[in-house]
């Protein structure tokens, strides 16, 4: 009996040291010698998106475009004469996992920078990690603003580059009575606060404001509320699969885009396929980029993307923003002559590149990007046709300080 | 001390419109050993279920030492001093024999003291083991016991509870001849200082151990009296022996049969004369 006791003890001990050894081992393999990751001929960069779980559907596409950018940069000789080596991690649609993997990328893989995140929640979870460890995150998705971390670059739109132009467009078209529909989380709630402030200042009327839980699929009651309120337009901040259910049920309730257009800010080319063109054609979206955006840089991007991932694939705004992020970081590194975080931050301000969405410039102050706002209408072929743009890149203003009506918001 | 311990008055139980017990009056005196017999469907087990709180009556009262039991929860009734066993013995297979008995003996302890470990074996458990002869098996898990041993363990658990009224539901069902005799002796032993009600089918067993007998039939008390009185009563003979011809005429018999009768096969064939009666009626009211 005593022997068996010791046998158990021994097994446990072996297991524990094995665990410890594994931990230690992977840390040394990840460690490397160079101060900022990689070695003499390579630079490690982290890519951190949800590859599994509910968000994978969206985030995988951004990972793809970021990998494409890295491939292109390497083909063109790399950065500072070194090749970029991506270290891809899975955030698993789970915010604490994002924080954990970000820590791993920084502490263990010692990457020079990280491109990643989609949901606001994942960004908020990663933010303390990057700030405490003084590492860089490039976040590629439009978001609710009211944030400006010194260790994050925001390559998607902030509210004054997407929501405000969307409202401007509706106002211009005489759609004064609007109904707000959104998923119940941070972005829609913040966006709707801004919309209500805008409406109050611009003689528009908000007839209703409804939220549904993430993943909600039963919209008949909500559609009924919308129909009864008879708004001129709906401003839609629903996220993910809920959009499919909402548009299907809106369509079958007999609502047409002519009588009551829906302006969406989270529906891009990728989502249109799943919703079904039938159900959404004619409705409006607000972004900074469409696959159809007409310029040589975009033509090259779309072709390269389809060549790498297949002709069926589409490109979308967040994908383009992720693609840009890699180029903007590479440019900043070249300018700084180093991958060292503070040097890159300092060098980044003012960098201007011609990207698929047109000219983009890094605002050195808030680390957001000057972007052109574009309103599009969904065509019957699933593509989005631009019907309006802001003419020139809009200066990012995450706290809406330059808008008098937004005074009470933050 | 003597006097009325249990008094059932005008009791009726209705299942989906079917009157399983129909106006039963039933009294048990302190210190009595009472047998409850009747063909399947007579309402014997239902009566015990009502006394122990498992089934709610449609009307009537059940008084135990003057307290009304109707509407009380099962465990409250046990705490008042009424214990029972089940047709199909239910013991805790994962626990040892002594643990089973100890749990039965411990319900009067305050809740917080249950959080302490059991040290040694209490007198009540010791006594229950001695009475049922399970001493040698004390440390065995109850799951390995034979059918007869399980029944004894159930009876032992009942004794360990130190109740004032014991209700045994077919304690010898499925037992071998030798086991029956041992159980009978056990019963006599217990009856010395307890009030006991036994449901039994086995006529042979009845002859050997019963004194007072109550016969139930179709939810009513048919006869009450000594074994000989009851055996010689023509109505009882009619009920028991006449059933075989009867059964085809009873349309309701099979109607609810679907939900009934698990674990009942064991009691058939105990005695040839009754085999037909017991085996024929699947309609023990459930």
């Amino acid at each position, binding site marked *: 009996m005593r022997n068996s006791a010791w046998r158990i003890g021994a097994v446990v001990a072996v297991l524990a040291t094995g665990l410890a050894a594994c931990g230690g081992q992977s840390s040394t393999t990840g460690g490397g010698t160079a101060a900022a990751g990689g070695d003499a001929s390579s630079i490690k960069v982290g890519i951190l998106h949800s590859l599994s779980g509910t968000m994978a559907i969206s985030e995988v596409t951004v990972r793809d475009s970021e990998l494409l950018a890295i491939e292109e940069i390497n083909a063109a000789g790399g950065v500072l004469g070194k090749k970029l080596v991506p270290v891809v991690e899975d955030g698993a649609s789970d915010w604490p996992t994002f924080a954990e993997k970000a820590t791993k990328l920084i502490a263990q893989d010692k990457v020079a920078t990280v491109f990643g995140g989609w949901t606001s929640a994942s960004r908020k979870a990663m933010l303390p990690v990057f700030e405490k460890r003084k590492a860089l995150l490039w976040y590629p998705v439009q978001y609710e603003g009211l944030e400006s971390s010194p260790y994050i670059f925001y390559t998607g739109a902030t509210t004054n580059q997407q929501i405000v132009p969307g409202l401007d467009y509706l106002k211009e078209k005489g759609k004064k009575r609007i109904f707000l529909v959104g998923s119940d989380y941070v972005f829609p709630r913040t966006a709707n606060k801004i919309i209500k402030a805008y409406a109050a200042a611009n003689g528009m009327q908000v007839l209703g404001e409804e939220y549904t839980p993430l993943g909600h699929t039963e919209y008949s009651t909500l559609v009924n509320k919308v129909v009864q309120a008879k708004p001129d337009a709906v401003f839609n901040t629903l996220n993910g699969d809920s959009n499919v259910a909402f548009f299907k049920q809106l369509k079958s309730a007999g609502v047409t885009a002519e009588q009551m257009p829906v302006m969406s800010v989270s529906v891009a080319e990728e989502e249109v396929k799943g919703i079904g063109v039938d159900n959404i054609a004619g409705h409006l979206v607000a972004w900074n980029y469409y696959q159809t955006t007409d310029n040589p840089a975009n033509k090259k991007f779309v072709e390269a993307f389809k060549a790498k991932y297949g002709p069926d694939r589409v490109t979308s705004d967040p994908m383009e923003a992720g693609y840009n992020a890699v180029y903007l970081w590479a440019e900043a590194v070249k300018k700084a002559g180093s991958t060292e975080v503070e040097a890159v931050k300092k060098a980044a301000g003012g960098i201007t590149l011609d990207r698929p969405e047109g000219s983009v410039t890094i605002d050195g102050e808030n680390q957001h990007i000057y972007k052109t706002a574009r309103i599009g209408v969904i065509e019957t072929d699933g593509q989005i046709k631009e019907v309006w743009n802001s003419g020139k890149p809009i200066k990012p203003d995450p706290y809406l300080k330059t808008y008098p009506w937004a005074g009470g918001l933050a | 001390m003597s006097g009325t311990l249990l008094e059932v008055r005008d009791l009726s139980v209705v299942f989906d419109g079917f009157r399983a017990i129909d106006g039963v009056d039933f009294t048990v005196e302190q210190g009595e050993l009472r047998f409850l017999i009747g063909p399947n469907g007579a309402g014997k087990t239902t009566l015990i279920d009502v006394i122990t709180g498992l089934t709610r009556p449609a009307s009537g009262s059940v008084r135990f030492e003057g307290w009304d039991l109707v509407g009380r929860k099962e465990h409250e009734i046990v705490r008042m001093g009424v214990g029972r066993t089940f047709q199909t013995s239910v013991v805790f297979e994962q626990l040892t024999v002594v643990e089973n008995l100890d749990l039965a003996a411990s319900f009067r302890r305050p809740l917080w003291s249950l959080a302490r470990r059991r040290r040694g074996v209490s007198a009540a458990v010791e006594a229950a083991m001695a009475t049922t002869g399970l001493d040698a098996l004390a440390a065995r898990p109850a799951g390995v016991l034979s059918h007869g041993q399980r029944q004894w363990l159930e009876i032992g658990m009942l004794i360990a509870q130190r109740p004032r009224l014991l209700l045994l539901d077919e304690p010898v069902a499925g037992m071998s001849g030798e086991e029956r005799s041992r159980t009978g002796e056990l019963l006599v032993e217990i009856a010395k200082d307890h009030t006991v009600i036994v449901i039994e089918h086995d006529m042979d067993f009845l002859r050997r151990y019963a004194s007072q007998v109550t016969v139930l039939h179709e939810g009513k008390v048919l006869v009450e009296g000594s074994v000989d009185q009851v055996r010689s009563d023509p109505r009882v003979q009619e009920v028991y022996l006449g059933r075989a011809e009867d059964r085809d005429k009873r349309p309701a018999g099979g109607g609810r049969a679907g939900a*009934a009768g698990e674990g009942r096969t064991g009691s058939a064939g105990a005695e040839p004369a009754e085999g037909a009666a017991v085996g024929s009626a699947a309609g023990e009211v459930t």
Partner: protein
Amino acid sequence: MEAIVNQLPIGLSIGAVLLLIALGLTFTFGQMGVINMAHGEFIMAGAYTAYLLQGWAGRQAVLVALPVAFAVAGLMGLILERTAIRHFYGRPLDTLLLTWGVSLVLQQLARDLFGAPNVQVQAPAWLQGGLGILPYNRLFIFALAVGSVVAIWGYMNRTSHGRRMQAVMQNRQLAAVMGINTGRVDQRTFFIGSGLAGIAGVALTLIGPVGPALGTYYIVDAFLVVVAGGLGQLRGAVIAAVALGLLNSYAEFWTNASLAKVIVFVAIIAFLQVRPQGMFVLRSRALT
């Protein structure tokens, strides 16, 4: 007042959806005590069946898919029952965990086979438009739910298979003793229960997303219907589904969608205080 009238058909149609997704579960859960967490993925399988049939049947795919999805999901259920679940009878909680494992695998499988993004199933042209406040596709789902209930009721009460099924549901041992091949009945039950999930999946393509996560959106609601309705009780499931549908629609109308879900949960807990075994319950003396 207008709201009360307006929300009534909406509540009924939500109830019809709930009933469709829960109907199969009342069988598998009710008869066999199997908590099939993969039920949601059988629904998903039905939806993808409609998607795949589009290539062949075009816009009528939804109609063609009904029997096919029934067979596909039913077969999946049959395979699950034969390979795993039959070893688990009497251990309902273990089947819950087992089938959850199965559901994870099926979700990932769908992701690998069809891709992570949602796919589109086009509704037939004749389902465009509607009658007053109710779209035709909702009426179609309503009719489908009623049809399924009638078919199941007929099967249970008018065929010998169905009666055997009821016998097993009420008392497994006794049914076995009486010569019913309970294993065979179980297979049939699981086939039908899972098949109904397939039909629900086809119906859901009309109103919701079709993607790998489809099942996860409905599974909790489906179980709540079964819990509130009572084990294996067809009429319980019908009443529970309609009641929850109405509650949901009114609660959401007067509050919001998030709060409505919470209200429904609280209502179910409260209801179980009154009827702990659900609305209808088989009486049994068996001591468990």
